[in-house]
């Protein structure tokens, strides 16, 4: 047992001394967590959104331009820097005092076409008059149109257009309230909830953190086994063990313990960063999530052994791991949900053990609804472990001359 513990400790120390291992096992998952949290941390709210939009009021010169000015002011208000650390929603481009609005409109339209602006709001001439007529019932079913220029297919422009529509919807209510037509106290309350969670909204970092932890474990398993055992075999380092009383079984136990220790280190680092820097609240150390994490680490280690068993050299093993890594990550729902796939890709999704483990882990952490039957999130990974043990027992070569 002492020898096993000693080898396990030495393996871990060796990995921690290797820059490449430090990079992929520790730095890279941390980097992904920081990057995705920074990008999407505010995506579910308007905290970070900022759109460059154009606003042209062609009704400004009208005799009673109250309503067009109101629209203009509403957008100007949203373009002011907000209090409490919130950013402004719009950066407004409006014509200068002396500038011809029509010429400005042509210029902003071109800027939108070229992607320099996300949307352009055009208040047409006669707008205020139309609003007035609609409010006072002088014309039936009259609506005042605001032209919204946008770039279909550009997701930034689409989002900007949706937000502009929302601003106009708020203005609608404001205008109707002023005209004593709309009663705010008659509004129906609206609430939001998240499917599959017990207590309210799920923050993105809580959704992301378990996925990044599994990604880190997957990297250990897929690349670790071919990168360590096969290299040691190809360089004839393993052969030296086999002339000592140290057996393959003991070597495997030591190697597995070192891998689990590395996983624990990754978990501690990512959890500390996620909760300390980004406010993650997922209870990763609770019994059920802990068991899923352990099952994940063992499953990925087993996958690494399958790769090692089917590869003639360490380089071939690393190539197979490289090929499998991306589809396993992206066709599992680890970062984004996978929907609408053709049958061929669905087969990969359902054969992929990461799909089951990430589903089970997130349900156990209460950060999402399980898409799969709960039993499958345990049984399928266990089946993969069984297959790996069977394949490795038959195929894995422990010496170059075997």
């Amino acid at each position: 047992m002492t020898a096993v513990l000693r080898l396990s400790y030495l393996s871990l120390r060796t990995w921690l001394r290797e820059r490449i291992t430090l990079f992929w096992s520790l730095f890279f998952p941390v980097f992904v967590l920081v990057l995705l949290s920074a990008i999407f941390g505010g995506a579910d709210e308007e905290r970070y959104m900022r759109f460059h939009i154009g606003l042209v009021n062609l009704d400004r010169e009208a005799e009673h331009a109250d309503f067009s000015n109101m629209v203009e002011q509403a957008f100007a208000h949203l373009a002011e820097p907000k209090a409490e650390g919130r950013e402004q929603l719009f950066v407004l481009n409006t014509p200068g005092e002396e500038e011809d609005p029509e010429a400005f409109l042509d210029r902003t339209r071109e800027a939108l076409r070229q992607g320099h602006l996300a949307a352009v709001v055009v208040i047409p001439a006669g707008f205020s008059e139309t609003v007035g007529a609609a409010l006072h019932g002088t014309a039936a079913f009259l609506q005042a149109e605001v032209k919204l220029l946008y770039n279909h297919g550009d997701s930034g422009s689409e989002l900007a257009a949706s937000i502009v529509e929302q601003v106009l919807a708020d203005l609608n209510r404001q205008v109707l309230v002023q005209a004593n037509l709309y009663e705010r106290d008659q509004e129906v309350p609206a609430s939001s909830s998240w499917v599959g969670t017990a207590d309210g909204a799920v923050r993105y970092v809580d959704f992301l953190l378990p996925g990044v932890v599994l990604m880190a474990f997957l990297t250990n398993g897929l690349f670790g086994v071919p990168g360590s055992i096969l290299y040691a075999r190809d360089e004839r380092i393993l052969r030296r063990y086999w002339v000592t009383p140290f057996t393959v079984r003991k070597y495997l136990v030591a190697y597995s313990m070192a891998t689990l220790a590395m996983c624990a280190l990754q978990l501690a680092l990512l959890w500390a960063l996620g909760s300390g820097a980004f406010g993650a609240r997922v209870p990763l150390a609770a019994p059920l999530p802990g068991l899923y994490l352990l099952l994940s680490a063992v499953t990925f280690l087993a996958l690494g052994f399958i790769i090692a068993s089917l590869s003639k050299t360490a380089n071939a093993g690393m190539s197979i791991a490289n090929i499998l890594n991306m589809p396993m990550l992206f066709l599992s729902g680890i970062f984004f949900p996978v929907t609408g796939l053709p049958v061929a890709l669905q087969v990969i999704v359902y054969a992929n053990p990461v799909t089951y483990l990430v589903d089970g882990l997130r349900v156990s952490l209460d950060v999402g609804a399980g898409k799969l039957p709960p039993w499958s999130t345990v049984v399928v990974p266990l089946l993969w472990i069984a297959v790996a043990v069977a394949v490795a027992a038959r195929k894995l070569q422990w010496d170059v001359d075997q």
Partner: protein
Amino acid sequence: MKQFAALTRSELTVFVRDRATFLVTFLFPLVFILIFGFIMGGEDVERVAVGIHIAEGADGEVLREVLSQRTGLEHQTFAAYHDLEKALQDREVDLGIGWDGDELSFLFDPAMVQRQGALSQLAAGVASDVNLRRQGLEEVLVAEREHVGRAAAANWFNMTVPAIIAFSILSAGVFAVSGHIAAMKERKILDRLIVTPMRPLLFLLAVMTVRLIVVYISTLITLFTAMGVFNVTFEVDWFRYTLLVAASTVGMMGFGALITLVVRRPSSAGNVANVLVIVMMFLSGIFFPVEIMPPFLQALSRVLPLTYMAAGLRHATGVIDMTGLRFFAITAALAALALVLIPALARYVVRPERR
């Protein structure tokens, strides 16, 4: 010329034999197109499936009317709230709405992070419309949308395919230097080559020639696969396309040279290149709008070469408009990056490695 031809031949042989690089160059863009195409491209940002549940005894007519009048929105009614939850979990619907006669409740899927902003806006819009209708009012102000971009920019996929091609050029160019040449340096292969009459610049030209050929072929395969599998149409300006792909490839080799020159240890250069490539992938607006990111990341996005490469390729494939001046400025800037940094890399090739 004979020397150049021999070096190019040998580089081509090395490239074809190097399975990992071969796969990265040809397979990864296709994997990206297929995976992201099916995961995200199939979801037209304007088409939303909404599931509704009307509680027993509540009148859901107003809600149904509001949903029917919204363009690009399909709705279906679920008899039980549990069924609505399940449909959302199974991603049969994108948004759930419950109405009990007194309160609207919107149900979201926490995993749909890439559409969260748009779905929240939709929910707010529906609530607003329901309130108006319940008080017997019509909207006074309405937004009339008008698409002003190119006709080819019909969906998310049109914007993304050229961007993925730009990303594959970035990877191939950067790793040709930070991976391939740095590895040759580390394995002391360059040390052996420099004692021959081979001129370092000629060697680099051979590497560039091979990369230009394979990257161009790879971009064509990606483009035609996207057109064939996803039925996307592009109006390609082949002159501009070819020019930009060539300038981007050598420009990114120049960028790789910069990394290799700054990060002295060859193996670390590969790691730094990996980090920079991934940073660019996420921050250049390829998959997600830059506008949802914090301001400092938006500012960073504007200085990344991939942002401009993607814009240039979108223009060359007829997806977005761009002035000729801007297009050629981007192309020239990328080519200049290569012209400045590749000669510096030639000195790196012959520089003895620190021990």
